[in-house]
């Protein structure tokens, strides 16, 4: 199992705050539903805003680590 904890630090709340709120909301919903296909589609959209964030978010998805993904999205939403 590849740990994704290290990747969390690179996804700063500031970077995530640059993403549209509606996109974050859809990602959270997809994570809550444990829907990796939808999450991967949405990370493609993230790529339009920040290619590195998209890559890091994909790592969570590939590891099926939705909780970490939600935690990151939550921190982005708070800024």
């Amino acid at each position, binding site marked *: *199992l590849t740990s994704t904890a290290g990747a969390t630090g690179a996804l700063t709340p500031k970077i995530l705050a640059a993403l549209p709120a509606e996109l974050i909301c859809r990602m959270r919903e997809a994570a809550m539903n444990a*829907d*990796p296909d939808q999450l991967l589609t949405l990370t493609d959209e993230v790529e339009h805003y920040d290619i590195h964030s998209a890559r890091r978010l994909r790592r969570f998805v590939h590891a099926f680590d939705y909780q970490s993904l939600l935690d990151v999205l939550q921190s982005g939403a708070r800024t």
Partner: protein
Amino acid sequence: MENSTVHQPVPSIMVVDDTPANLRLLTGMLKERGYKVRPVSSGKFALQTAKHDPPDLILLDIIMPEMNGYEVCECLKADEQLSGIPVIFISALNETMDKVKAFKVGGVDYVTKPFQFEEVQARVATHLELRRQKRLVQESNEQLRKLEELRDNLVHMVVHDMRTPLTAIYGFLRTLETLKGESLSDQGREFVQTALASTEDLVEMVSSLLDVSKMEAEEMKLNLTQCELLTISREALAKVEPLKGDRELMLSGTDEPVTVMADAELIARVFQNLLGNALKFTPDAGQVTVSIESSADAARVLVQDTGPGIPPEYRERIFEKFGQVENPANKQRYSTGIGLTFCKLAVEAHDGQVGVNSEEGRGSTFWFTLPRRESVP
């Protein structure tokens, strides 16, 4: 012609395993078979996402950090919203005790790793179909319950509105009877008597229906007093005496007074219903016997007849409202009406029990018990 094909939604399967490689493998295979798959790598998150959107089935690994599969399953089964989701365990543990435990915590099936996908697929398909059928049955039951409620409301409304005109008819017939029908011919007086008896039956039916509605809604207030059951039974026997014809009506058993705390009027109507019922099904020259047994805890009343008896499959149904049963003697179907439902609810409102013992071709014994208590509960 209208197309009757109903498209079923794609079943959603949650796969829970802490090894991403296993998740990928199962997810890919199940997706190929057309299922919507939700792979989850932890038990804790599985519960969270199941609550968010309950899946149709869960494939659950056992050995996982933080929360193992047994614990996850126990939590699912403890949750009313999630308890109906079938859980298939899929684990490398292959001892009998592991499998027994999986079923004990609520699993419906068990697949050991390494698995053959065909086996997983077959079990998944079977349990999804079972779940679908179970849902259909639940939906049908719910529809039936709603229809029953509608019927009861309708019956209640009609019966309630019938009571006032019926009381007027009854009152005028009584007046005619009291006046001895002086201006009537003998046949006219006979007609009045028959009309009065039938109206009394209708009034009794209306009262029973309204009381059953009240008792079902737990709105019936019991007027509890110390009642003596022998006296009530003698009065009830006297009341049904005109109906007995060539049948023999008897009171047997104890001569000692049997006192219980009960609503005398309701219990009297229970006696009358059971006696009326017994007479209805007892052929000429048959016997109907009432007996009362008493113990420290309860009084037990038995109404025994020498009628055709009741087949076992109908012995519970006869206590249901308007239950349909078949008379074994003439193979005719008829409705049991409301009388026995009234008896059941009235006795149960006193914390008593009611039932029937029967032998086909020999007769039936309807019985009820009333707890003996010193004061109003």
